[in-house]
């Protein structure tokens, strides 16, 4: 009697397992039996959603990704400094990061590649309250400058100071690590100026609080004109899944071209996409400021220049930032943003 029951139970179990397996297979191959395989990609953002991501939200909203049979799952990592690690290890397909960080990572053997220059010029700047009278880098001598603890800011400031005739460079100012809360540190007077603040974001934030600011742009003070935000993927992705990269960049470009054309409409979409969690008072003016920075010389979104990569790599090397020799040419590719 009992043996029959056991056999029945085992049979049922086997049947159940088979059913599940078939179901799983069916689901896996279910949607999109079209020519291009529908792919889901993960994108790690550099920071919380803001005006810099306008093109991304537009592409999502207007179905540009869908047109390319892509489903994009983008998120902000709890710790944004991990973007290059997750992309390099293959956990994320794409990431938004910074040109200096890409070079730092490659120097340590992290196999990441910049596939598009999203923000064509530095957004990082030195910022001081107008009331302080600090208008050029040399005015910083003997003052306290706050920074977010990210090492790259040190040589950036050093170069700016030297470009303004301060031969001692960084030694002539006091750097204070204030974490990411740059605006409160500046407004409260804890520091006289800040570096690491975006002239398209923190500046607006501070001015909205009723404090006009002076901005010193990096590229105007001796720093090579670098790409603030770049789209990165791992070397493996670029090599083995080039078609996915091509489709992604193409959709992204369409989104950003719309953003360049009508930034405010883009902000509407951003607000909708983030369920009003962004600060409209910052993002609206920010979007207008950013639109020109997304534009390239060739009016080709995301296009990257090898000369600029070489120059910036050299600058990093000269400032002792790179632990090992880095070949600038290997750090980026223009395959996906070349002529249409």
């Amino acid at each position: 009697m009992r043996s029959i029951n056991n056999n029945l139970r085992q049979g049922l179990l086997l049947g159940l397992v088979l059913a599940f397996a078939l179901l799983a297979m069916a689901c896996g191959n279910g949607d999109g039996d079209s020519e291009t395989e529908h792919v889901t990609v993960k994108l790690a953002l550099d920071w919380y959603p803001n005006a810099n991501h306008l093109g991304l939200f537009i592409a999502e909203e207007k179905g540009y990704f869908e047109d390319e049979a892509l489903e994009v799952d983008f998120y902000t990592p709890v710790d944004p400094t991990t973007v290059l690690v997750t992309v390099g290890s293959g956990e994320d397909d794409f990431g938004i990061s910074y040109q200096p960080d890409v070079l730092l990572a490659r120097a340590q053997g992290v196999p990441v590649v910049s596939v598009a220059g999203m923000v064509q010029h530095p957004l990082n700047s030195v910022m001081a309250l107008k009331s302080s009278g600090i208008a050029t880098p040399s005015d910083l001598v003997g003052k306290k400058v706050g920074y977010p603890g990210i090492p790259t800011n040190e040589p950036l400031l050093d170069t700016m100071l030297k470009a303004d005739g301060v031969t001692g460079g960084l030694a002539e100012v006091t750097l204070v690590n204030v974490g990411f809360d740059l605006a409160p540190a500046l407004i409260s007077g804890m520091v006289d100026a800040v570096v690491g603040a975006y002239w398209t974001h923190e500046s607006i934030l501070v001015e909205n609080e009723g404090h006009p600011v002076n901005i010193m742009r990096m590229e105007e003070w001796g720093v090579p004109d670098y790409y603030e935000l770049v789209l990165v993927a791992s070397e493996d992705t670029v090599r083995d899944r080039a078609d996915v990269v091509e489709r992604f960049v193409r959709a992204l470009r369409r989104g950003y071209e719309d953003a360049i054309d009508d930034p405010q409409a883009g902000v509407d979409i951003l607000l909708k996409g983030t369920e009003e969690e962004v600060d409209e008072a910052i993002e609206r003016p920010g979007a207008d400021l950013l639109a020109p920075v997304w534009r390239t010389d060739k009016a080709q979104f995301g296009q990257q220049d090898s000369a600029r990569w070489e120059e910036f790599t050299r600058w990093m090397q000269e400032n002792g930032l790179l632990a090992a020799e880095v070949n600038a040419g290997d750090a980026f590719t223009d395959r996906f943003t070349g002529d249409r």
Partner: protein
Amino acid sequence: MSLDTLKSGLIHWSAAGYFRVSRAVGQWFPSLLIVMAILGFWEGYVRAFDVQRWLLPAPSVIATTMGDRAGMLSEHALVTLEEVLIGFSLALFGGVVLASTIALSRTFERAIYPFVIASPTIPWLLVAPLLLIWFGPGLATKIIVVALIAFFPIVVTMVDGLRSIDPDLVSLLRTMGASRWQLFTKVQLPSSLPFLFSGIKVAVAVSVIGAVVGEWVGSSEGLGYLMVRSKAQFLTERVFASIVILAAMGFGLFLLVGLIERWSIPWWHGQRRARSSRQEL
């Protein structure tokens, strides 16, 4: 003293030392074995699967980094240690005073104790930036973060300890004419020490965490700062090296507290040992 006496004294002393050391080793041997096993497995895994150094460094790489950058690491370690010790001392002093007042005054207890209980639930990592604004980026902010985190276990355990006295003992001492204050100083305080020490052990461990958290928010030195900075430079082995040192720091402080405890309340351990050995009979 003759040479013979000296010689026999030396032999006895070194023999005693040998037995003490070998007993200590015997106590720690199982844990040591486990640690070795974990390290071995880790090293093997990294080598076998060719895991990238920036993703997960092998123990051998971490050890080499610790050797190469010993100077830098110890400099930062000392800063963090300073924050831990000062912050913890503040928490200890404040905690003992507060616990005593809570035990001595019912009204005070009702007013203040709810805040004490709520304190560990406050996410200090998010409050720390505010502290940074108020107290500046110097040592003060870190010390305050440490003190705020270490405060809770000390107050709670000490209050429990102060309340734990035998009511018959209190009656007896009252018949001997003890005043409220004498009861507090001669009975409640000494009997609260074992409880306080267990609170101190917890506090010391979380003080290390507190110092690191404080440094993450805004600092130019210390192991927490070094961790953030090294991570930005993809020097993962330095991050791990910092973690190792922090763990050693916490462990070392814990052991130190244990030693101080054994020295200040010898009766407690003797009592526990006596009780347990009696049960075995």
